[in-house]
């Protein structure tokens, strides 16, 4: 009945086609709003970080150049001078943890993902995948203490007692190990979803040509699911860089320009935690320095993401 009515112009408002169109537009606008929301969040972060950070850099005791290039981070020294505000030790701490935890989590996560998607039976997968995801939910505080109470003693027993290599009580390696364990589920679960979505026809074509399971997994499925796998990597590493409590507890509070993961270091996030929960008055130079450090971290991840995005563009494949 509506169809007949739609032919008359007076009743064109009740035209189902038109209603559908309006609904489509509204939905599109709502979804666009959701998409733009993330930009609002970024703007919020930039405003709250950079406004205080700029206040920090405007202080006469601080110099932007020495901040970025200096290798001595000692903001609580009684003499407040630019030499005490070089951020590079913190950056090195963050990068060390990120690299070591990444090199633990990425292979193990990808391996687990391949196992779960290609080799495991459905029942096994339905048990193992939730168990792995449980690793993601353990409070970060617990991981920190796990590093101190289990990983560091183990490390000491193996390295110090057997090989005589000195292991500090707080060291970057223990923290990186637990952070790596923490992000394995992120890498594994999302990669695994991506690999399962690869159409079966692709695999079967390869099997038909006589490929072994290993070859199918590595030469057919992984490349096909690559964008998902890389996204999983990005999520994992991002979380490792932004991790706060575990590294605060386990890596220590000593900013240090070192390449030795067995030394204690302080990451940028650990410094922010230390000052936020500490004693410093809010408007003091110490209180403001955390915003400068936060802003630096933000810019660092931004640059890394730009680089990885451009690399990604070349490798993306679309399969039907």
């Amino acid at each position, binding site marked *: 009945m509506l169809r007949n009515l739609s032919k008359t112009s007076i009743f064109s408002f009740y035209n189902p086609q038109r209603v559908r169109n309006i609904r489509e537009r509204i939905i599109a606008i709502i979804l666009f709003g959701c998409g733009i929301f993330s930009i609002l969040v970024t703007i919020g972060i930039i405003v709250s970080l950079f406004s205080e950070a700029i206040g920090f850099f405007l202080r006469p005791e601080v110099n932007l150049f020495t901040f970025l290039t200096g290798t001595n981070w*000692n*903001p*609580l*020294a*009684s*003499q407040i001078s630019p030499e005490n505000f070089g951020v590079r030790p913190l950056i090195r701490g963050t990068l060390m943890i990120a690299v070591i935890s990444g090199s633990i989590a990425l292979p193990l996560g990808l391996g687990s993902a391949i196992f779960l998607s290609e*080799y495991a*039976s459905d029942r*096994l997968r339905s048990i193992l995948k939730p168990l792995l995801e449980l690793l993601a939910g353990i409070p970060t505080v617990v991981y920190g*203490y796990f590093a*101190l*109470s*289990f990983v*560091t*003693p*183990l490390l000491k*027993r193996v390295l110090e007692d057997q090989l005589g290599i000195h292991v*500090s*009580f*707080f060291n970057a390696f223990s923290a990186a190990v637990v952070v790596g364990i923490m992000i394995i589920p992120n890498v594994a679960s999302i990669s695994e979803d991506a690999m399962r979505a690869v159409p079966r026809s692709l695999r079967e074509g390869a099997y038909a040509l006589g490929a072994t399971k290993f070859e199918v997994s590595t030469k057919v499925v992984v490349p096909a699911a690559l964008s998902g796998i890389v996204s999983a990597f990005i999520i994992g590493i991002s979380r490792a860089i932004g991790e706060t409590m575990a590294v*605060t*507890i386990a890596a*220590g*509070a*000593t900013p240090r320009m070192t390449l030795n993961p067995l030394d*204690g270091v302080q990451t940028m996030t650990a410094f922010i935690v*230390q*000052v*936020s*929960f*500490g*004693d*410093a*008055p*809010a*408007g*003091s130079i*110490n*209180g403001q320095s955390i915003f400068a450090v936060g802003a630096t971290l933000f810019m660092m991840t931004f640059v890394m993401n730009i680089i990885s995005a451009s690399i990604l563009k070349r490798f993306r494949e679309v399969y039907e």
Partner: protein
Amino acid sequence: MLRKNIVSLLLVLVISSLILAACSGSNATPAPSEPESNQSEPTEAPVSEPASSSEFVTLEGDVIADGSSTVFPVTTAVAEEFALVAPNVRVSVGLSGTGGGFKVFCVGETDISDASRPIKDEEIEVCQSNGIEYVEFLVALDGLTVMVNPENDWLTEISAEQLAALLGASSTITKWSDLDPTYPEEDILFFIPDPDSGTRDYMKEIVEEVSGDEDLRQDENTTFSSDDNVLLDGIANEKYAFGFFGYAYYINNKDKVKAVPVVNSDGNAVLPSDETVQNGTYNPLSRPLFIYVNQNSLETKPQVVEFVRFFFGPDGGQAIMSDVGYSMPPTGTYEANLELLAGSIQ
């Protein structure tokens, strides 16, 4: 075939993890090891009866406190007791740190600010510019304890000068023998609270007074931590360790570390205890702990007034102080606080 492999491998996994867990446990290093105290099995919880007839039963409202983690145990213990006489008053306590506590206090968001140091000038300015008036109360004393490993039998007392010599940033002492030639020739391993902790700040001031050093040492043999439990474990496990932190951590772990008597202003070496801290003979390491109460809250919120009054009454701070490991301030302080309170609400 794969399934059988998996089952056997899972068995290997469970067994190996049990072995690993047992190994780490038996090495009695920090936190999850065998329970050392007698209380490894939970005792039955004694039920506390709320006061049946209390004038505050009908009192209701919120009391918001925030601030230092050192004062936290005191405020929460008093709140716990207060809940027995005023069950409808909701007291919430936060842990933002002394600085963070003042930050929210000076914009009027909290009624009470817990502080392990007096309010600083820049914070006073912020309070004034926001029109916040407050009252300062001394609530407790924390006897900072100097600690060494139980096997350390050579250090029998320590003076403020020696502390400054050991802990100052310009210190050249690395071995025990540098402090005193009769001590062993081993490196001293320092375990001290990290920058930004009130405990460390207090020690810094003492060091500064004595030797003019404006900062504490930072070198390879020094381990920082914000968690006093970690420092405790470090000292308990290293024979040549040396450190200092709050009395509460010492008193609960007397079997794991050894406290060193400090030579006070009279020249006597005194060990920290409830009495010596309160009567002032344990000095200079007795740290005062404060609460700051918003004047406006005192004037508009009866539940805040009653809470503060309860705090300084016989059932408040006095009753719980030894439970939480701090010492009462000098006799008469609480009475003076009550007078101060009465004067503020007029």
